[in-house]
């Protein structure tokens, strides 16, 4: 089953709208004035813990068909009737801010400043083409002021997370599997995840002392710090997959999750699973995939892709390689 064969259940707006009409291109990023290397794709991870302001510079581009939300006579003069907006949204801090851009020709350039003190967790930057003022338009077109005409995939920023937040949706405990009546039969296991309760519990096997020593390493530089990053990624990938599938299974037909941690897991991963879909439609896409057993492998594949991007695995492995080479 390929992506093109998927049966999609999408929410359509009651007027012409181009959901893939815009794209956000970030050309440069700087942290308190110092240049920051860009990640590949449509996300940026900020590893520094202390900073005040992140500046992104780039452009919002109109793709082919971007003006399909406008009646024919307005398509030749979009700058007179519509504006481009970048809307910044951070769910954890309830932060929303709109930035109007000057629409010129095929798009608009932007420079966007994000203050660290307003942000926690993922920050989404979403492009919109919006009708400027109310107009009388032919049937099938949006004529209201502020009406959505086109959007596109969002750009995501991941600020560094303090360690104290790590246990919000997951309780992590170190236990000796050898001393546990059930787990002692599986001494080869590194971890065991329980998802039945109000909060999932991750038990890490303390019998693997060398692994635990690396996981507990406090430093930010050196071989152990780089190993720790990769170890965490490996464990996280397995654990997040299990949490995700468990959360998907628990959803009711309206997309409501019975537990807060399930909501949290889906909020975190859905933007990666469906990067091209507007936020309001991601749950519909997920439910459509879940509804058909033939799509379950596709769901697992997309989850794996999402996790590889979310966890920044390649970056951490490359750092480990560089550090290991340097220490030879």
């Amino acid at each position, binding site marked *: 089953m390929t992506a093109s064969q998927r049966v999609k259940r999408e929410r359509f707006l009651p007027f012409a709208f181009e959901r893939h009409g815009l794209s956000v291109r970030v050309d440069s990023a700087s942290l308190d004035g110092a240049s920051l290397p860009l990640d590949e794709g449509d996300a940026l991870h900020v590893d520094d813990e202390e900073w005040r302001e992140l500046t992104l510079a780039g452009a919002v581009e109109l793709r082919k068909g971007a003006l399909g939300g406008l009646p024919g006579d307005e398509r030749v003069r979009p700058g007179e009737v519509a504006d481009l907006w970048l809307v910044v949204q951070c769910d954890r801090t*309830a932060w929303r*801010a709109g930035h109007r851009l000057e629409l010129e020709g095929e798009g608009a350039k932007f420079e966007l400043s994000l203050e*660290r003190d307003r942000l926690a*967790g993922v920050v989404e930057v979403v492009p*919109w083409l919006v009708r400027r003022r109310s107009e009388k338009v032919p049937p099938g077109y949006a004529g209201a002021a502020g009406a959505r005409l086109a959007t596109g995939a969002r750009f995501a920023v991941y600020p560094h997370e303090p360690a104290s937040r790590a246990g919000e949706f997951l309780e992590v405990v170190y236990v000796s599997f050898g001393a546990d009546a059930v787990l002692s039969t599986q001494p080869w296991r590194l971890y065991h995840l329980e998802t039945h309760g109000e909060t999932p519990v991750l038990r890490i096997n303390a019998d693997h002392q060398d692994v635990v020593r690396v996981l507990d390493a406090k430093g930010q530089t050196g071989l152990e710090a780089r190993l720790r990053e990769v170890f965490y990624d490996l464990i996280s990938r397995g654990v997040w997959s299990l949490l995700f599938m468990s959360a998907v299974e628990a959803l009711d037909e309206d997309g409501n999750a019975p537990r807060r941690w399930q909501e949290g897991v889906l909020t975190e991963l859905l933007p990666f699973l469906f990067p091209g879909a507007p936020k309001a439609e991601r749950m519909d896409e997920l439910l459509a995939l879940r509804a058909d057993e033939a799509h379950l492998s596709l769901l697992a594949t997309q989850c794996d892709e999402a996790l590889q991007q979310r966890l920044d695995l390649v970056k951490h492995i490359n750092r480990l390689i560089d550090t290991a080479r340097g220490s030879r």
Partner: protein
Amino acid sequence: MSRLKVLLPSARHLVTEELARGVVERYDEAAVGEHTVDFERRLDLGGFDDAVSAVMASHDAGDLSMDGAMAEAVHRQLRLSRREAADPGIWRYLAIVHRPEVVRHRWEYRSFATMRTRFWRHGTRFDANAFSRWWWVAELTVMAEDYSLTHRALGSSALSTHLFSRQLAWHHPTVAACVRILADAPGADVERTLRVLGKMLGLRVAEAMGREELEGLVRAARG
């Protein structure tokens, strides 16, 4: 003087029926030490304690009119950035360890299920952690030290319940339009209007709309 701390997720078991009922008035700080860490900077709670106590003293137990005063007091005294306030651990520390009697003073015990969330759940929903809800509603409604919108929004039980459980409350001009038009509306009217408004905003970009357009939209949603 007490300092703000962060209560870790491992402290979930501390939210007991005994704490919610006041049989356990408060926990000994030393006894919960293993579940707390220092807040990332020094923030003394003296001013916060005085202000919260003053609001309690001037309102009877269960009086919902204390919400506006409490929101202003908590927000004025806890000068936090949104990033800092996004950590549920600080609100849990305040409600479960530092001032549990404030939660009990505001809400009469009716069921443990609801009372439990008023100590633990982060956010602005009507059943969220009391301090978290007061601070965040004030943050979403204050304008240059003017808390009049905060008081009006929390003065209507229906409005505060239905408005702050929706993402449209994250946009200050939208909140202001809702409060101006719906503060005195009947509960059923408020609930229906906000449901319709949510759908209407799903077709628009609120950030691209001016005050008059937003107020017009709220009126149209009210029908």
